[in-house]
C-alpha cells in the first residue's frame, strides 16, 4: 500500500479547491459548458443519460479498508447507495449531482482518493495486475513503477491536452493479467542479463472502432529511463497525433499510419535529443517511492492448516475454494477473489453495505487491503489459509462468494444503454440473463474458463474484442441487435475475436451463447481444452454453422 505524504495530500486538496471554483463558475454562467466540459472530464465527470457519472481513480487497483469505507460513504451520501467497478480498476458512481461533487471530492481527498484524469484527453489511471506484490513468480512489484508513472503523469503541463485519451498498463508476470497489449503504452517489467530492472515498451494497442494489438518499439528500457522514454513517446504523440477526427486520434492510429519502425525511430530521436534528462530516475528516487509502499509482515504458516483440512468435507466451501482462491507467493497465505457477478445481478456493482462489510473483512483477514481487478471483481490479497473457512462464510453472507470466477457467468460488461449516452444497446440485461442460463455451478465448472465480454457500443468499454465470446450492441432500425465474436484474448497471447455471423436481436443473444457453448462441449478434444483453444484449433466455421443453422 502506498502511503500518501503531505505533498501528495496537498496536491489533492489544491485540485479539489480548483474544481470547486470551476463548478461555481459554471453554475454562475461565468464558464460556458464548452469551456467547462473538458475541465469536468479532467476530474472524471461525465454526463450520461440520467445524470452525471463520476469516475474515481483507484491507482493500480489497490485500496485500503479506510478508503473503501469512504467510497461507501460517497455512494450513500451523494449517490444511490452503490458503485460500479470498471474494466480499468476504477469505480463509477452514476447519480451524482454536479453541485455536490466538490464536497464528494473533498471527502475522498481526506483518504487519499482522487478523480484526476480519469477522463479527458490526458493520461489515465495506470493499471496493473490486481495480484501485484503477491503473485508467485512475479519479478518485482510493478506498483512501484505504476506510482512513479502516476505522479509523473498527474497534471503534466505539456500533456494535459493530448489528441485523445492515453492509457498505460504494467505487468511484471509472465502471465499478463493487466492486458498490456491493448493499451496505448504497455509495459512488461523484466530484468536484463545484468539483472537490472527494465521494461519492454509496447505502443499502440487499443480497442474501440479500430482495435489494434500493441507493438514493441523497444525491447528493453532501463528502469532509470522509464520516465524520460515515456516523455519522448508522449511528446511525439502530442505533436503528431491526429486532431482532425476523434475516431483517428489515438496513438494506435499514428503508429499504424507511420509504421512501427518509423514511429520507434521518431521516439528514439526525440529521446536522444532530450540528452541528460531531469527525468532520469536515480536509485535514491526509486528507493524513496519504494519505501512508502508498506507490505504485511507475514507469519510463518503451514501449507495445509487444520482449519482447511476440516472444512474440506464441505462441498460448498470446497467448490468456492477451488474456484476463487489462488496461490500466494508466501506459504500459508492465499489471494481470494470476491465475485461481484451474482446470478441475476449487474456485473461489477457493489452496494455501500457490501463495501463496508468487505472493508471490515479486509481489516480482519487481509491486513486492511483490497484489490480491484479489470474483470470487475475485487480481491483480498493477503488471506491466511487457516482463515479461509471463516472468510468464506462471511463473504457468502454478503453475496460476494459466487464460485464463478473466470467462468462463463463471470461476465465483463460496460454499463450500456441503461446508463451511458454513447451506447446503442443495453448490456446489463444481457449479462443478467446469461448468468441465469449458466447459474448451475456444476455446468459452469464443466464448461471451464470462458470470458464473456459485453460492450453496448463500438467504444468497447466492455473489451468485447478480446473476449473469448465478445458481444457488441448495435442498433438496427431502432431495435437492439448484437454482433457476436469468438476467440479473442486479452493476455500475453492477445488476439481479437472473429465475427461469427450477422447480428442477432436482444431476445436471442442468450440462446446464441448457449448454442456456442454446446458446440464447444461437443467439439473439444478433452475436458480441459479451453473454449478459446478449441476455437483456435477449429476456427469459427463449426460454431457459425451451429448458431446459424436455424436462424
Amino acid at each position, binding site marked *: 500500500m502506498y502511503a500518501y505524504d503531505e505533498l501528495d495530500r496537498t496536491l489533492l486538496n489544491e485540485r479539489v479547491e480548483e474544481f470547486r471554483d470551476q463548478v461555481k463558475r*459554471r453554475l454562475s454562467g461565468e464558464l460556458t459548458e464548452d469551456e467547462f466540459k473538458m475541465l469536468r472530464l479532467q476530474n472524471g465527470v461525465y*454526463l450520461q443519460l*440520467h445524470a452525471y457519472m463520476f469516475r474515481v481513480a483507484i491507482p493500480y487497483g489497490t485500496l485500503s479498508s479506510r478508503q473503501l469505507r469512504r467510497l461507501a460513504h460517497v455512494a450513500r451520501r451523494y449517490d444511490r447507495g452503490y458503485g460500479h467497478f470498471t474494466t480499468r480498476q476504477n469505480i463509477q458512481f452514476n447519480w451524482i449531482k454536479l453541485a455536490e461533487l466538490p464536497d464528494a471530492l473533498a471527502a475522498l481527498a481526506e483518504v487519499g482518493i482522487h478523480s484526476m484524469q480519469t477522463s479527458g484527453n490526458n493520461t489515465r489511471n495506470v493499471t496493473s495486475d490486481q495480484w501485484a506484490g503477491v503473485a508467485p513468480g512475479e519479478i518485482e512489484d510493478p506498483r512501484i513503477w505504476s506510482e512513479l508513472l502516476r505522479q509523473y503523469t498527474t497534471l503534466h503541463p505539456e500533456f494535459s491536452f493530448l489528441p485523445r485519451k492515453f492509457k498505460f498498463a504494467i505487468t511484471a508476470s509472465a502471465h499478463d493479467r493487466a492486458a498490456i497489449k491493448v493499451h496505448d503504452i504497455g509495459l512488461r517489467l523484466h530484468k536484463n542479463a545484468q539483472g537490472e530492472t527494465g521494461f519492454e515498451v509496447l505502443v499502440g494497442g487499443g480497442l474501440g472502432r479500430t482495435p489494434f494489438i500493441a507493438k514493441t518499439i523497444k525491447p528493453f528500457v532501463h528502469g532509470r529511463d522509464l520516465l524520460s522514454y515515456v516523455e519522448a513517446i508522449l511528446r511525439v504523440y502530442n505533436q503528431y497525433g491526429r486532431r482532425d477526427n476523434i475516431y483517428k486520434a489515438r496513438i494506435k492510429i499514428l503508429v499504424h499510419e507511420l509504421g512501427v519502425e518509423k514511429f520507434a525511430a521518431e521516439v528514439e530521436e526525440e529521446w536522444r535529443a532530450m540528452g541528460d534528462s531531469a527525468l532520469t530516475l536515480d536509485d535514491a528516487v526509486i528507493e524513496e517511492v519504494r519505501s512508502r509502499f508498506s507490505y504485511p509482515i507475514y507469519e510463518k504458516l503451514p501449507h495445509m492448516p487444520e482449519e482447511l483440512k476440516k472444512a474440506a468435507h464441505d462441498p460448498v466451501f470446497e467448490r468456492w475454494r477451488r474456484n476463487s482462491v489462488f496461490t500466494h507467493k508466501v506459504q500459508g497465505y492465499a489471494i481470494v477473489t470476491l465475485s461481484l457477478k451474482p446470478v441475476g445481478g449487474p456485473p461489477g456493482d457493489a452496494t455501500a453495505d457490501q463495501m463496508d462489510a468487505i472493508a471490515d473483512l479486509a481489516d480482519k483477514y487481509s491486513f486492511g487491503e483490497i484489490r480491484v481487478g479489470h474483470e470487475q471483481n475485487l480481491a483480498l490479497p493477503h488471506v491466511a489459509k487457516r482463515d479461509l473457512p471463516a472468510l468464506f462464510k462471511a463473504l457468502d453472507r454478503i453475496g460476494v462468494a459466487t464460485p464463478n470466477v473466470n467462468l462463463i457467468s463471470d461476465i465483463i460488461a460496460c454499463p450500456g444503454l441503461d446508463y451511458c449516452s454513447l451506447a446503442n444497446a443495453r448490456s446489463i440485461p444481457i449479462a443478467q440473463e446469461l448468468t441465469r442460463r449458466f447459474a448451475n455451478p456444476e455446468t459452469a465448472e464443466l464448461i471451464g474458463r470462458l470470458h464473456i465480454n459485453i460492450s453496448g457500443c463500438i467504444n468497447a468499454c466492455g473489451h468485447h474484442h478480446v473476449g473469448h465470446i465478445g458481444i457488441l450492441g448495435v442498433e438496427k432500425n431502432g431495435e437492439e441487435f448484437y454482433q457476436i465474436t469468438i476467440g479473442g484474448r486479452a493476455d500475453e497471447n492477445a488476439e481479437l475475436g472473429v465475427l461469427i455471423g450477422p447480428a442477432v436481436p436482444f431476445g436471442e443473444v442468450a440462446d446464441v451463447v448457449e448454442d456456442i457453448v454446446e458446440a464447444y462441449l461437443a467439439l473439444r478434444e478433452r475436458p480441459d481444452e479451453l473454449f478459446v483453444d478449441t476455437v483456435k484449433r477449429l476456427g469459427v466455421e463449426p460454431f457459425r454453422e451451429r448458431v446459424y443453422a436455424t436462424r
Partner: protein
Amino acid sequence: MTSPLEQKIRITGPSIVTANRTFDGAVIYRNALQGWSTDLSEAAIVRTVAEARALLAESVADDIGAVGAYIAPVDINDGGNVKPGNLRELIRQRGVTIELPLSA
C-alpha cells in the same frame, strides 16, 4: 465539434427538445414557456425542421440551466399522450431497465 445548431436536423414526426439539468444532471424537456420541465407531458412539441431549430436554439442559449440539448422523437397516442419515441428516450424518462442494487 459542430454545435448542435449547425448539425443537420431531421424530423420524422412529432419531436421535442431534451437535455440534462446542469446542477444535478436530471433529464429535462423544453416546454412552451421558455423553460424546462422534468415531465415529458409538458414538453413543447415541434413538427417541422424550422420549429425544431428554433426550439433548439432557445434551449441551447440556456447554457446555465441545461447541458447537451438535442432533438428527440416522441410518439403521440390516440389519447394525445406523449410517449418517448425510442428506447433511449424511454430509458431516460423511466430510468434504468434493471433493478438498482439495494443496500441490504
